[in-house]
């Protein structure tokens, strides 16, 4: 009785409840395959009351839904809100029709030993499962809760089926040989695509020196053609090449260290990938930023001017702060950083220059030390040595007195000054803020944040200059991975925007700002006070777990022991010193290779081979390849 799903379906039309004959009746389609059992079940469910009212201990309640293996949702009601709760229950019941039952439980009649704030309870059909009491904010959360439950169940069932299948097929059951490195797998899957590398010069031991002397500036990517991370970077690099095509004075090139190991070690390249920028007569600069197309392009473009660039006149200095000078960089909207020094402050100036060479490529840095330096700096009410920070095209210029003269301090300070007060957190910029090692007060927003939120948050951030936290926001549209974060915190995406306090570095608690309260500086501050006082309960806590090996390795030592008796630990001088360095294997995964020979024999129709000579030729591997294809979990390759 295999149903043909495409040609027939069954719906239950709820015309009995229809109040207005002009309106079409509601209907509920049967979601399962059209089998006798399913039809019976569906009809039974449709016949059950939409909302059951209960006045007893929910543990004892049983309805047709539970009997049919579906969950039952209790809406916890009070006398005062009965009408509203009843409407909510009915609304939810319609949504869940056929998937779960809905009951209205009156708290006044039953003595429930649960949180007063709880408004929903969930009872699952499994025997012995405790009832979950929850505080939910809207009806969608209820629906999600039920649907996710059933999905999880579905998945588990699927997995079980799969596992059974695997057992039957005698396939590796612990998946050790399935790639779980996202970068390696992505690069493998992309290997057949031809990369547009025409713009990138291939350098070899023979032409390396001569090529460097041909261009003003040569960017060299050192990579290894077998190494996934460097191949991933090569892909971004090819995008950079397309992006920078036609930029004068910059030559993009690459060296495959698998072909030219001598050249790579001579250039001090010990790991892949490495990008260096060579300029005639100068020491090469090693790129130390994000391996992304934008970041790399910007680095290369910024590297074209010296860092810091010496400004000769007051006009140039002003133009520089506005972002108009030097012209090569006018298209780049970076903050302009200008060091102003009087002729007497050479120590600070040298440190600044040194800092410039460290920050080269990442930051626009200028330097002015003409006679009228004092006049320039006083315009921004500081006196040399000082830093001037020109943001947004010079519309706001901030003056900062330079007090520390060590290079390290200066680099640190410049980095710090360039951080935004209320930044939008993105994947590339998060590390800069992580380095502050402070908790995050972060507003997750579905898109751009509103004027009001922005204003209030900025006030909050600015109001406390030595603040103990990073105030920031995240645009889920621009940084969709934020959904993943929210899902980890709350299982479902809460209503947005949502303001969170995340203790990233100490304790890992996540607190959620009450959604009913408007996001204002005052509210946030009082909430933060409550947080500090320990009056709030964290919504979630970040996992403290160490990053352990995702899967066990082949235990060759164990496999070897039977055939190499002299290896057994008894002959080892320290018996009992054998480590338990292999994590426990999944049941049945023991001796995965040890009985490989037997397995192999079975799959080959029991050729009488000596034990310990597994399929060693193409014939031996052929059935496996086929099995893999069937699994469809691995890229196909020979």
């Amino acid at each position, binding site marked *: 009785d295999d149903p043909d799903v495409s040609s027939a379906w069954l719906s239950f039309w709820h015309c009995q409840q229809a109040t207005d004959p002009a309106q079409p009746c509601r209907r509920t389609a049967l979601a399962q395959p059209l089998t006798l059992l399913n039809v019976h079940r569906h009809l039974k469910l449709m016949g059950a009351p939409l909302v059951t009212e209960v006045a007893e201990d929910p543990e004892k309640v049983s309805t047709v839904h539970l009997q049919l293996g579906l969950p039952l949702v209790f809406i916890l009601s009070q006398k005062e809100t009965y009408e509203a709760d009843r409407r909510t229950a009915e609304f939810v019941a319609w949504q869940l029709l056929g998937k779960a039952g809905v009951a209205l439980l009156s708290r006044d009649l039953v003595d429930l030993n649960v*949180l007063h704030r709880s408004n929903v309870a969930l009872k699952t059909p499994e025997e012995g499962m405790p009832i979950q009491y*929850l*505080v939910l904010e809207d009806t969608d959360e209820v629906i999600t809760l039920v649907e*996710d439950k059933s999905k999880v169940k579905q998945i588990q069932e699927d997995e079980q089926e799969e596992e059974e299948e695997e057992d039957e097929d005698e396939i*590796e059951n612990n998946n050790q*040989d399935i790639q*779980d*490195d*996202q*970068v390696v797998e*992505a*690069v*493998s899957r992309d290997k057949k695509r031809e990369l547009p590398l025409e713009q990138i010069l291939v350098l070899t*031991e023979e032409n390396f020196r001569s090529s460097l002397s041909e261009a003003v500036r040569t960017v060299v990517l050192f990579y290894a053609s077998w190494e996934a991370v460097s191949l991933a*970077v090569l*892909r*971004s690099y090819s995008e950079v090449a397309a992006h920078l095509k036609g930029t004068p004075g910059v030559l993009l090139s690459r060296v495959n260290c*698998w072909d030219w*190991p001598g050249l790579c070690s001579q250039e001090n390249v*010990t*790991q892949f990938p490495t990008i260096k920028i060579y300029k005639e007569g100068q020491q090469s600069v090693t790129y130390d930023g*994000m*391996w*992304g197309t934008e970041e790399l392009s910007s680095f290369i473009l910024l590297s074209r001017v010296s860092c810091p660039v010496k400004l000769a006149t007051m006009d140039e200095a002003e133009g520089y702060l506005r972002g108009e000078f030097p012209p090569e960089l006018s298209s780049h909207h970076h903050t302009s950083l200008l060091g102003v020094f009087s002729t007497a402050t050479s120590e600070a100036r040298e440190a600044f220059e040194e800092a410039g060479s460290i920050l080269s490529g990442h930051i626009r840095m200028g330097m002015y030390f003409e006679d009228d330096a004092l006049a320039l700096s006083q315009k921004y009410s500081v006196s040399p040595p000082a830093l001037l920070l020109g943001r947004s095209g010079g519309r706001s210029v901030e003056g900062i007195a330079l007090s520390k003269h060590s290079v390290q301090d200066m680099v640190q300070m410049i980095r710090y000054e360039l951080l935004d007060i209320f930044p939008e957190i993105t994947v590339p910029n998060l*590390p800069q803020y*992580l380095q502050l090692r402070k908790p995050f007060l972060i507003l997750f927003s*579905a898109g751009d944040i509103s004027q009001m939120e922005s204003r209030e948050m900025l006030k909050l951030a600015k109001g406390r200059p030595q603040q103990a936290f990073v105030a920031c926001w995240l645009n*889920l549209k621009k940084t*969709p*991975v934020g*959904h*993943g974060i929210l899902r980890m915190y709350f*299982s479902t*995406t809460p209503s947005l925007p949502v303001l969170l306090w995340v203790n*990233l570095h100490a304790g890992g608690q996540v607190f959620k700002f009450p959604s009913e309260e408007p996001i204002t500086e005052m509210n946030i501050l009082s909430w933060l006070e409550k947080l500090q006082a320990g009056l709030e309960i964290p*919504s*979630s806590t*970040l*996992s403290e*777990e160490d*990053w*352990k*090996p995702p899967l*066990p*390795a*082949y235990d*060759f030592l164990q496999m*070897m022991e039977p055939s*190499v008796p*002299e290896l057994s630990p008894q002959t080892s001088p320290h018996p009992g010193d054998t480590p338990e*360095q*292999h994590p426990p294997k999944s049941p049945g995964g023991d001796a*995965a*290779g040890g009985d*490989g020979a037997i397995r192999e024999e079975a799959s080959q129709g029991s050729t009488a081979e000596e034990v310990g000579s*597994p*399929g*060693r030729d193409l014939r031996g*591997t052929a059935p496996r390849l086929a099995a893999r294809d069937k699994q469809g979990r*691995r890229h196909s390759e020979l």
Partner: protein
Amino acid sequence: LGLALYAGSLCAVSGATFVYHDYCVIGAGPAGLQAAYFLQQAGRDYIVFERSHAPGSFFALYPRHRKLISINKQYTGKSNSEFNLRHDWNSLLSHDRRLLFRRYSRDFFPNADTMVRYLEDFASLLKLRVQYNTAIIHVTLEENEQAWNGHYFLLTDQDRKNYKCSSLLVAAGMWVPNVVNFPGSEYVEGYETVSINPEDFAGQTVLILGRGNSAFETAENILGVTNFIHMVSRSRVRLSWATHYVGDLRAINNGLLDTYQLKSLDGLLEGDLEDLAIVKDKKGKLHITLRFYLENRNISAGIDSITLPQDELDNFATRAPYDRVIRCLGWKFDFSIYNRSLRMVPGKGNIKKYPQIKPSYESRGTRGLFVLGTASHSVDFRKSAGGFIHGFRYTTRAVHRLLENRHHGVPWPSTVYPITQLTNSIIKRVNEASGLYQMFSVLADIILLRENATAFEYLEEYPIGVLAELEMQTGRKARNGLFVIIMEYGRNFSGADKDVFYYNRAVGEAQHAWQSNFLHPVIYYYKHLPTEREMRLRPPDWPLPRPDAIHHIVEDFLTDWTAPNAHILPLRRFLENCLSTDLRSFFAESCFLFAFTHQKLPPFCQQGYVRMQGLVGSQELRHHAVQAGLLQDYTHTDFSGDRPPDSHDGSQEQLMRDHAIPVHPLQHLVNAKDE
């Protein structure tokens, strides 16, 4: 430092005049020149003594038929210079690319004259300090507490000139012919002097004593013109392609095996040469008999009075008389020049032709005396390549590094890497390193882990025989465990009597890698440096004691171990499990997610992304990762109506599965507060 003042200067000690050098090298053959190169590069005070007027005097004579059996591969399809050295068995190591043997000869098996020319160029282009026409005829010790090793080495040459050194490197090679004495051995011609002109053998019947490459090389030369050749030796023939030892009979010389097995009159016999006797008849023909028959007889009494085996056994195999008997029994080390105080004694058993040395190549009898080159082959005789140029060029470098550490405080060269580079650094080396490949099971790369396994130190080509002494010998610390990377053949694959072409001889699957037969990388993991005792008690035929864990990278037909799933993935899992960490690489987006959802980050994110070197990845790559279920795509998440995302599917959680927040947030609420 005081010693340096004497450098190269004459000084009078106990009446005699000495020229002093820190290092004296005996012999300007390949090993002596190789040692000289490293000493020169390090700026050390050294001198090489060569008895001849030019380097490589052995090669000026030998092999007699002038064909070297070391391969000189012109092409490998690769430009990797280190990899290509795996298939260049004649070049010495240097920075000068002109000194690659393929620039000297296009022959796969080059002529020995080319080797002589090459060695001359090596010495002159690199301006090595070689004193020619100086035969060291005596070496003795002078006790001195100030000396590096408690004594100086005093050397005397043929003109009674004296030299004094702190360290003596013996690279004199093996040039004393092995001679067997039996009645009638005076009729035997030596390989050293026998004619190499085939015409001299026309119509003759020849007996060759020995079964090595020189014996077969000699036979090969005259195979076509003799009546027949018989070859006699104690042991069965050892074919190099069965034993995987380059010193055994090579296919290029084995024509006689063909004619023997195809019954073209030539033949092989087994027998102890000590039992042999040769009798010359009146016509000058040589008859084989047994020493046994000669007892109480006088050979000079004439052939008629001597019993020949065929008198009793009329089908005795070598009953036919021979025109010539040629001895091709190889060479031994010249022990004669060393004073007894140096205790330069022969090894035991089948290595008695070599002087006794430790696995560090230092003499067992005398501290500060190192044996290099062919004479040092006792360490890996019949196993690896230490007796040949392509092997000892690396062991010589290892000895140099030991000396640099011991005498000059220069620790063994090493590179420190972050732990994220662990898999890569191993893959790079096993794919290109020539020293590991040639000196398999003898030289090993060592990875010393730093505290908390966040970084490691990589040392190349250390002699594993002295693994227990690693800290003392290298000046590096091994406190937090180590990996030892070597290459091995399968345990029961090699041997003179083994069938190396049996069906199913090659393993293809990573999970059976430990049964690999052909040369493949093996990684041993030790939590603590093995002790001397553990090294001594290691299983027989094992290069190392039982490790805490072991990994075999499955043998590869192309010797290219870069396959992501078959080679790199199992290696990564092994390393992860040894270190108890997660060594996967992640795109920046994953690190971003982890940074917000985990208090700790995997090493790749910690050492990359957090330091602002995250791997952003191109659109296509991220798309592939999503397709593979290893990265979740949130871009299509519909959040306009606060709706939960629908794109939830099972496989995407693979990454997060083990690392999910342990306390379900909603449960947390319930449990925390009971009102």
